[in-house]
């Protein structure tokens, strides 16, 4: 499954990229599966995802929970808690 991953704010700074297209490994079903896989990629990702509870994810531009299935989502965004307003 090929997805576009986008990173924002300090997650973007820590992983060192704004966006990338990735082939997800077999068996990646939930948001949590994806985050665990990303965390093990290298040191930068390990640093970005050291506190999983602070990581927020949107599937096709809608907020989602970590236990949610990725399903057919094509755009997955990963970011810290929001501070707008």
């Amino acid at each position, binding site marked *: 499954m090929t997805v576009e991953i986008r990173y924002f704010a300090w997650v973007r700074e820590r992983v060192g990229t704004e966006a990338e297209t990735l082939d997800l490994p077999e068996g990646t079903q939930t948001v949590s599966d994806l985050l665990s896989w990303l965390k093990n990629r290298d040191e930068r990702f390990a640093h970005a995802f050291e506190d999983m509870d602070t990581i927020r994810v949107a599937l096709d*531009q809608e907020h989602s929970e970590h236990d949610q299935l990725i399903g057919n989502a094509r755009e997955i965004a990963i970011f810290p808690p929001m501070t707008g307003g």
Partner: protein
Amino acid sequence: MSGPITPKVLIQAEDFDAAAEAGALSAGRKDVGALVTFTGLCRDEDGRLSALELEHYPGMAEAEITRIAKEACSRWPLTGLTVIHRFGKIAPGGNIVLVAAASSHRRAAFEAADYLMDFLKTRAPFWKKEHLKEGSEGSWVEAKTIDDDAAKRWTPG
């Protein structure tokens, strides 16, 4: 009675004119009895900040704020609702966000504006970074538990 109105939502780098936006919600109408306008501005944090930089998620920012605004329009009998959120670098004293809610009666207008701000804070994909006067780049503003608690007030149970 007609259904909920369609809110006006703008995500932009440019400044906005709060008085003109508010005025447009009552211009030429006789059914508006209450108009609440909230403007969020950039503070200098006791002279420490030179600017705030707002990063946003284009596409989702519009989509999420529209979802929140439509929910407000279905919860309260509003006659008009305008939400504008800026992104980019904003100097102290500058405008960041505008919520203008109009209704026949004050309670709906007050509550809808309050609701909008609580959810903009916690669900609109924007992130603030401080730029300091002393030294170059500051740090990312941390999300506050008090904002999460404020948003929870609107969910029963």
